[in-house]
């Protein structure tokens, strides 16, 4: 391999894996083509040969770190696999998904190599000899174009909705041997499954979400009522889970659920990046917020700036009236 080559660190686990891998493949293909190099993929896990074979349809080489130690995420074992591959291949760029695993591994690799990392990137721009990474700063209120003045380039990429194209390659799958240190200072014990209670918000066609701007727990009835009037389900953003109002089964965002309903209404949600990850692919997005500068308006189709306490009761009444007129039943 050479510094023109690109490594993407794909995932075989649960959760955001598919969206992360799709984004990594799309960006990796583009970057490797631009640099005239090969595209390699690293996959760590246990019993994941089928996934490796699937990924081989998109890249030149798949390196498979398949071992019982990688059954669940192990920061040390996974890092060793990436480090070994980077030492062996000397690629010019190593890309991770901006998942909790990528967010953990990319800075670890950068720290080990003494190089920079651009995290949370939503775009890459390439010209003759420079790759510019586009990433949010200041809670997403400002965007930055950054360049990495170290090699290899290391970045985490925001998850995309990009569906995988039809596979057009037949990459080689090569197993690599990774043994974690005997005296591991970090020891994974178990993976904890998500709580599953009540409705599955990922299956709903209409989702009405409340955020910090709702103010009080009592006031969340506005969100419930609007969801009810629309025949949808209520959901929430992270702060309400942090305050203990709801469990993560109701949470939209990177830590909770990714939803893609035909209608998503965000009430009192400013639109932190972590939240946008979980809903930006929705069919129609409506944002209701007091702050016209809130990042949520950047992804919304329709926006209403104002006091939720005034706007939402009106909206609930209008929705009920419209649905009564068309004969739709609210739940």
């Amino acid at each position: 391999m050479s510094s023109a080559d690109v490594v993407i660190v794909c995932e075989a686990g649960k959760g955001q894996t598919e969206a992360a891998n799709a984004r990594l493949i799309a960006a990796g293909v583009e970057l490797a083509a631009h640099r005239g190099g090969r595209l390699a993929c690293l996959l760590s896990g246990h019993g994941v040969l089928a996934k490796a074979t699937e990924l081989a349809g998109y890249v030149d080489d798949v390196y498979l770190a398949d071992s019982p130690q990688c059954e669940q995420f192990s920061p040390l074992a996974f890092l060793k696999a990436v480090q070994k591959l980077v030492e062996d291949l000397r690629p010019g760029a190593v890309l991770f998904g901006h998942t909790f695993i990528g967010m953990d591994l990319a800075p670890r690799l950068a720290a080990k190599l003494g190089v920079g990392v651009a995290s949370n990137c939503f775009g890459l721009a390439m010209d003759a000899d420079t790759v510019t990474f586009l990433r949010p700063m200041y809670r997403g209120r400002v965007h930055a174009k950054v360049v990495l003045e170290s090699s290899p380039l290391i970045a985490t990429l925001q998850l995309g909705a990009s569906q995988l194209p039809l596979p057009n390659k037949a990459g080689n799958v090569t197993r690599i041997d990774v043994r974690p240190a005997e005296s591991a200072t970090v020891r994974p014990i178990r993976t904890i499954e998500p709580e599953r209670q009540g409705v599955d918000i990922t299956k709903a066609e209409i989702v009405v979400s409340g955020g910090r701007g709702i103010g009080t727990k009592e006031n969340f009835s506005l969100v419930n009522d609007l969801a009810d009037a629309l025949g949808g389900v209520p959901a929430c953003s992270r702060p309400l889970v942090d305050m203990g109002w709801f469990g993560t089964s109701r949470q939209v965002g990177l830590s909770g659920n990714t939803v893609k309903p035909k209608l998503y209404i965000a009430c009192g949600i400013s639109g932190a990046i972590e939240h946008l990850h979980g809903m930006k692919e929705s069919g129609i997005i409506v944002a209701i917020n007091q702050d016209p500068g809130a990042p949520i308006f950047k992804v919304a189709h329709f926006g209403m700036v104002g006091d939720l306490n005034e706007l939402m009761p009106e909206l609930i009444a209008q929705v009920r009236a419209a649905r009564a007129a068309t004969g739709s039943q609210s739940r």
Partner: protein
Amino acid sequence: MKIITCVKHVPTSAVTPRIAVTKIGIEEEGLSYEVNEPDLYAIEEALYQRSLQGGSVTSVTVGPARAKEALHVAYAKGVDQCIHVVDENSRGTHPALNVRAIASIAKKLDCDLILAGIQADDDLQGQFGIALAEALALPVVTAVTEIRANSSARMVTVVRELGAGYKQELEVDLPCVLTIQFGIRPLRYTPVMAIVRARSRKIESIDLGALGISPEELRMANPVRVVELCYPEDSGRCELIDGPAPEMARNLVHKLVEAGVV
């Protein structure tokens, strides 16, 4: 248990900072600052662990004179000691410098546990805790939502997020660095008067030179170079609905009916 929490003083999250004419930074004048929110969670967790295990909590920040305000909040919340590494030059925004400075203090304090917020709300990089652990050759776990300490066994059992509702339980040997996820425990309200009273508490002020960080190192390249800042482009698609509340609601519902989603 001796705990250090790392605190960053960042522009308040409620407003959009003005981009400076150079386009590579923001205008500090007129901007208000606050404690990085994830770092507040780290302070809350440190205080909780102290309540169970005994010991002390020291909060450390790197930044210009104004960054002391972050430490007033830390004192008001109940930490035992605060240290301010004065950095008027890069003003707390140089990642490698922050790591060097806090690593140097952590070595002197000989602590058991270092807590840092999962990310800083200004640069959103999420790499400080990991880089600090690497500099100190300590283990690190990120995105931690629960800590159960067993200091006699010199280790902690932690729960971390893996995304999409999945979590993971791990054991980590002490001393270690943990990056703290939002919501690890509720943020208690801090009365303004408590912060005012905390202003009289002693903050140990340390110059970079005293930590052996030289002016040359101050100029050391930051491998992540911002070439341009801009405001997020409008997707151009957001149609703002204006007017009195009843009219706005009627307009929106009309549009949603037209779009076939209601």
